């Protein structure tokens, strides 16, 4: 009997020939990602660390990204503790404030590879399925335990195959596809499952795949993964990772899936997730006269070069609506550098955008653009939960960078197909 991607990779990492859904296996992941929460994690195991040290200085990837630069004495102190920990235990893969959002950094630095297994104490760790890794989120206590022992248990998930057919229309992006899918199967539609994307995927760049895998957890998935292909290879070549460094995992043709779903890409339009759940998805053309006060282009979902490029095309030589704040939040330093070098950022700033440092910015409501009661924000992020960006009286809408840029122009939620370029 053939195996799915998840069954195969978990067999590989637990030293078994095969695994079955529901089975519990012990695995040693290639890497463990933690971010600003590292401070709280190491606090739990102070004594054990003193006595035994970390399992391996190469296991951890630590990125300071969530509240950067520090917004208060408390966050500053957390960052300081993390830096001390990194020095003391010679943590190899450390990225201080300013390098970017952890998930973007992991992929850009070639730390997530095809066929690898990565666990992280952040729910969007599932993003690395974009490059054919098996990656999923865990809690802080589990991260603490992994730091000490290098291993943990995983339950082998059921798998769902999503076959994407056809071709995306103009002004429709990967973000619209994943919003459409989540609207269809709901926020719990893939709970505990491994989601595999198949079909006409060669039209999706690694950046597009990142957006889609990133939102896997918003339908409850354990991980979400794209098969390895020429696009993956091309991307890894471009960041200097030779193909000898990895071995992709392919699901078997005769693997058994809990569900097989087909989506016709030609039919998908620009979509918006309305407050306060990610599955409350509607075509943007059906939303009428929703005024907005803040627009956010960025986060680990859509803060990459192509996202700013799309926005720049819409906003070049124009001014945003006077009642709107447009926040620009590059996902990493290298994204920021590229947008500066190629002149993609300039027109966005001229149009009225405010450039924020690479990091999580206002995505989790801690700083740099929190919302007041009664305000509305349209954002390219992945979550619109009540209270996430500040006031619980505020509303968050999620959309593609094109829809957010078009909305910034008119001060209300706008279909990017309506904008004259």
């Amino acid at each position, binding site marked *: 009997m053939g195996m799915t991607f998840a069954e195969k990779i978990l067999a590989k990492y637990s030293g078994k020939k095969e695994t079955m859904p529901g089975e519990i296996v012990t695995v040693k992941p290639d890497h463990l990602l933690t971010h600003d929460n590292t401070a709280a994690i190491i606090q739990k195991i102070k004594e054990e660390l003193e006595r035994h040290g970390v399992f391996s200085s190469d296991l951890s990837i630590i990125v300071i990204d969530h509240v950067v630069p520090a917004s208060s004495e408390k966050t500053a102190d957390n960052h300081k503790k993390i830096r001390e920990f990194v020095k003391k235990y010679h943590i190899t893969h450390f990225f201080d404030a300013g390098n970017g959002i952890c998930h973007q950094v992991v992929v850009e630095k070639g730390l997530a590879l095809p066929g690898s297994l990565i666990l992280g104490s952040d*729910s969007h760790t599932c993003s690395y399925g974009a490059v054919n890794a098996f990656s999923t989120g865990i809690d*802080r*206590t589990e991260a603490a335990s992994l730091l000490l022992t290098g291993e943990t248990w995983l339950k082998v998930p059921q798998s769902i195959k999503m076959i994407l057919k056809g071709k995306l229309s103009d002004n429709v992006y990967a973000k619209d596809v994943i919003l459409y899918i989540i609207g269809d199967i709901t926020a*719990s539609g893939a709970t505990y499952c491994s989601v595999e994307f198949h079909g006409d995927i060669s039209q999706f760049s690694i950046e597009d795949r990142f957006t889609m895998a990133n939102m896997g957890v918003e339908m409850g998935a354990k991980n979400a993964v794209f098969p390895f292909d020429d696009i993956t290879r091309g991307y890894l070549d471009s960041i200097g990772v030779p193909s000898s460094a990895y071995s992709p995992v392919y699901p078997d043709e005769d693997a058994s899936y809990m569900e097989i779903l087909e989506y016709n890409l030609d039919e998908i339009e620009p979509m918006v997730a309305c407050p306060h759940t990610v599955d409350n998805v509607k075509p943007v053309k059906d939303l009428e006269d929703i005024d907005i006060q803040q627009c956010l282009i960025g986060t680990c979902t859509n803060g990459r070069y192509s996202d700013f490029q799309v926005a720049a095309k819409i906003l070049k030589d124009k001014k945003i609506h006077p009642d709107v704040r447009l926040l620009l939040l590059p996902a990493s330093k290298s994204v920021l550098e590229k947008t500066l070098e190629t002149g993609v950022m300039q027109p966005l700033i001229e149009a009225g955008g405010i450039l924020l440092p690479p990091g999580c910015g206002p995505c989790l*409501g*801690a700083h740099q653009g929190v919302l007041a009661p009664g305000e509305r924000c349209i954002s390219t992020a992945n979550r619109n*939960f*009540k209270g996430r960006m500040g006031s619980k009286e505020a509303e968050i809408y999620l959309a593609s960078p094109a829809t957010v840029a078009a909305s910034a122009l008119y001060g209300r939620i706008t279909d990017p197909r309506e904008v004259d370029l």
Partner: protein
Amino acid sequence: MRIWRYGDDINTDMLFPGKYTYTCSTPDEIKPHLLEDLDPEFARKVKPGDIIVAGKNFGCGSSREQPVVGLKAVGIKAVIAESFARIFYRAAINQGLLLIESAEAVKAYKPGDKISIDIDKGRITVGDKEFSFPPLPKEILAIREAGGLLNYTREKLRKLYG
């Protein structure tokens, strides 16, 4: 014993707002903010032994563990839901918070019903109706019996290094 009834998709921001994630980690810091945006009464009135009954996908969203640590700290005896989000489920195992997945029990519950739980037998009584839930796998029982994952890991380290 009070039973707190909530709906579907109760996410981690409702259970514990993200804006406090990097400033509140200890049970005492967490407690006042529990369910702050969902039910301001909860943090004031919850008592040890209380039970939460909820719909589908309880605990969806972030991987932050404050919701679990907080619910455990205020003495929630169990959360009974139609289904749980995966990271939340794992965090609960690791903290020793009892979660019971039983759509039947949730659907049977009416305000005023008493609930009792027998973990060893895998049985839950709601009003005058009884339901069973599957026993925990042995790997997970071992973590529960050790009193949570950190204790379990400490035992493992002791065996390794003495």
